[in-house]
């Protein structure tokens, strides 16, 4: 049982929380303007790293607030808990953010690139 330090209520067992998957994922601001591929990216394609992951959790049995954490998916160590609208301050977590293809300032560039290269499937 993970111990998650809710920024408001303090440390609680993971069973009190709802998992929200990848953090820093932004909905395309104008969904009508993006391709099916970009929309599929938004809907279905999450980071799934073996190692440090920036992810969203919600203290559903407590204060009901969403927040972000940086957690290692192998060791389960939690490096940082930070607000939903902030970036991590931990250096390793920050590096993970910087490498993320979905990171905000690269989202647009990526979107175009992905639309071109994702001719996958049969």
């Amino acid at each position: 049982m993970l111990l998650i330090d809710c920024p408001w209520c303090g440390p609680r067992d993971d069973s009190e929380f709802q998992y929200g998957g990848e953090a820093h994922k932004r909905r395309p601001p104008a969904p009508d303007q993006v391709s099916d591929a970009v929309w599929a990216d938004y809907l279905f394609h999450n980071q799934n790293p073996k190692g440090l992951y920036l992810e969203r959790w919600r203290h559903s049995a407590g204060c009901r607030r969403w927040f972000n954490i940086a957690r290692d998916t192998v060791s389960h160590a939690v490096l940082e808990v930070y607000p939903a609208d902030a970036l991590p301050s931990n250096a390793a977590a920050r590096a993970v953010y910087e490498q993320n293809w979905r990171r905000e300032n690269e989202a647009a560039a990526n979107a175009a690139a992905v639309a071109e290269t994702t001719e996958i499937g049969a």
Partner: protein
Amino acid sequence: MSAINRGVRALKNSAKRYSLAALARNAFNGHNQWTEAWRNAKPREAYDVVIIGGGGHGLATAYYLASVHGIRNIAVLEKGWIGGGNTGRNTTIIRSNYLWDESAALYEHALKLWEGLSQDLNFNLMFSQRGVLTLAHSEHEMKEMSRRVNAIRLNGIDSEVLNPMEIKALVPIIDINPGLRYPVMGGFLQKRGGTARHDAVAWGYARAADDFGVDIIQNCAVTAIRREGDQVTGVETNQGFIKAAKIGCVASGHSGVLAAMAGLRLPIESRPLQALVSEPIKPVIDTVVMSNAVHMYISQSDKGELVLGAGTDAYNSYAQRGSLPIIEHMLEAAVELYPIVSRVRVLRTWGGIVDTCPDASPIISKTSIKGLYFNCGWGTGGFKATPGSGHVFADLIARDTPNAIAAPFALSRFESGHLIDEHGAAGVAH
């Protein structure tokens, strides 16, 4: 459905073949004539096909590539020991009673291959068609069950509806008191479903593939997938570079990691799935029984252990361990439905890492990179599909085009929106 091409039987003319004569011979000479089940191969420079992942699906893929398609220059790369991933960590249930046509075709294809697989491989997989019963616990579930049973039947798959009394006759330890919080209102049984010995599936396929010359390379971790332009050229491993024109990725639980190596994104999240066994007891339950509403399923192994499984944990993990509440809730449900198990003791719990897809259906697909194929996303239900998965994936790799069974499971469905939503089929909630 047309007859399945099961390929050439392994070890047909081999001195290594298991037979009554071989058993007798060895019994009287101290078992000194049994040879290696498979060679512990070292990688050669190049292969026609490299399969990444030495679990049941990967080994089956290699076996069918060799036995059906005649491609023998194959390496199976396994980062640990073969069958050490989800093949060796599941609850061994086999069935094909799925809702959607696409799934029914795939899992029924697998089930037909299971029937006779021990003989194909000359290895007793202990495939036991003891029946799989799925329970309904509410009026709503009864309606869902009716939809499912009708669909299964019209897809030509066996399924029969049982009432509580018939369920009690089949599973005497079940409590059918209508006053239960989740009373047993009915269920449907697939008699051809059952269980198999999970480790044996990996070993049997490995031994048979080895007999066709496939190299099975253990402790061989892939560190990079190399390509030139949009064509794969081989893989970097901890045992050096291995050249290959075609690469099949069949690494359940780690598919996302492999995809990242190739610069691809998969709609997959890796989650822990937990299961447990009790201490061995004398037989109390012959049928496999699954229950959606209370999130648990149960069977009894040939050794006497009760085998229980639950749903996945809610968060991503590669740690092969899950949270305790999953186990607690599963066992609360076990006591509720099977009161006599309260004093039976849990022997061992464990977790596996499963690839979960948004629609709870697998991915069997080409990719945007030529020669790179993915077979993943089986979620909680991969074991039952092992032969079918290997069979259609081998076909895809050999012909570079999916057959009718594999086609609906291509990656393109996530763009088009043509999902195959089988969340209701898992037996437990994801």
